[in-house]
């Protein structure tokens, strides 16, 4: 059985198709398929997140460290772009606390990379530390999930990705109103006022209603559309600066301008 230091669990045959590093080439991905790179040093957590993602129809590559993630993406060794064409990655979801390279450090490296900085990065952590969350969001993280991660959390992420992939194969980012509106589900409950103001949904996914869950910490509801300056007061979906109005006051302003390019 693969030890934790290995690529990831090799137990089940279907996982071979998941692809990964260590010489396992995955077939070129269908452009409509959402491909997620999951990074977590815990084998248990990798299996769980992989299952959560596959249930939401994502293709998953799971690796056990930030270094392997960079290696997979080809960020650390300037691989030719022919290689990169096969590596369509729509979302990177990473644990925060990892030995060697933390999720935060990985996030920074991804955002420094011209090829991958537009890929949304989601951080997971078992610890609900506001300063940590802020730091990640400021560095450009899309969202921050509190562990243990649940299906509702992943569905929420999936919802705002769907519009990206379907509307444009090349651009990972879409116009704010398209992605914001997908996040129609009542988020994990926050301060009362934030849940009143709902954006008119342009529902692209019918799964949004499944995302209701028992109230969780405010942090967990930090699902966001993409990174543009947030104005907590702004409920207007149609403008570029609109956030998901349901989001809590805890949601911090992103520090960087929209990378809609």
């Amino acid at each position, binding site marked *: *059985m693969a030890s*934790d230091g290995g690529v990831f*669990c090799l*137990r*089940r045959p279907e996982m071979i198709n998941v692809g990964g590093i260590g010489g396992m080439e995955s077939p070129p991905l269908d452009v409509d398929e959402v491909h997620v790179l999951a990074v977590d*040093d*815990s*084998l*248990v*957590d990798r*299996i*769980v997140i992989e*299952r*959560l993602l596959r*249930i939401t129809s994502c293709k998953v590559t799971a690796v056990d460290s930030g270094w392997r993630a960079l290696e997979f993406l080809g960020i650390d060794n300037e691989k030719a772009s022919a290689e990169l064409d096969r590596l369509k990655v729509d979302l990177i979801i990473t644990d925060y*606390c990892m*030995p060697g390279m933390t999720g935060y450090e990985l996030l920074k490296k991804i955002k420094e990379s011209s090829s991958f900085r537009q890929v949304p990065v989601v951080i997971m952590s*078992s610890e609900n530390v506001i300063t940590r969350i802020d730091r990640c969001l400021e560095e450009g993280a899309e969202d921050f999930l509190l*562990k*243990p*991660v*649940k*299906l509702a959390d992943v569905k929420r992420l999936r919802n705002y990705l769907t519009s990206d992939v379907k509307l444009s194969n090349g651009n990972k980012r879409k116009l704010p109103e398209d992605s914001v509106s997908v996040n129609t589900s009542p988020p994990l409950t926050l301060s009362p006022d934030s849940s009143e103001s709902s954006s008119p949904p342009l529902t692209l996914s019918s799964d949004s209603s499944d995302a209701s869950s*028992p109230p969780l910490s405010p942090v967990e509801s930090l699902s966001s559309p993409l990174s543009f300056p947030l104005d907590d007061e702004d409920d207007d979906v149609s403008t570029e600066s609109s956030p998901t109005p349901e989001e809590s006051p805890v949601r911090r302003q992103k520090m960087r301008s929209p990378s809609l390019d």
Partner: protein
Amino acid sequence: MDSHVAQLQMQYRNYILSLYQQGFLDDQFTELKSLQDDGSPDFVAEVLSLFFDDCVKLVGNMARALDQTGTVDFSQVGANVHQLKGSSSSVGAKRVKGLCINFKELCEAKNYEGCVRCLQQVDIEYKTLKAKLQDMFNVSVIIVHMNPVSVWDDFNKIILGKE
């Protein structure tokens, strides 16, 4: 024969409920169960198996670290506790997770005696859980044999409130 099956099913049902009531499992276990389906019928068993492997490994690491009398590296112990806390949380092993929370504080306080005691408790706790879950799976196998309707249906009805 039906009444035997019904009896077993009832015992099975009660057994699962008691695991929740006694705090062995929490809603993350329910969440994991909800991720299992006909296409992935062994998902829960798989994850639990990996979790218990983790327990063996991490408890071993901690025992070795604590064994370095005089030069115990508490941050090393703490790192292992953190990992165990994470995986127990991910599978819904509530008691193990709770012990890890205490354990972490003991590491931070560099409380040697406390850490040793806590490690012993962790060891007992994960083994107890493993035995209980094994019983649960064994019973479920028997029931499935006797009754083609999946025993997980009962589980779903009770725990998840599905019909």
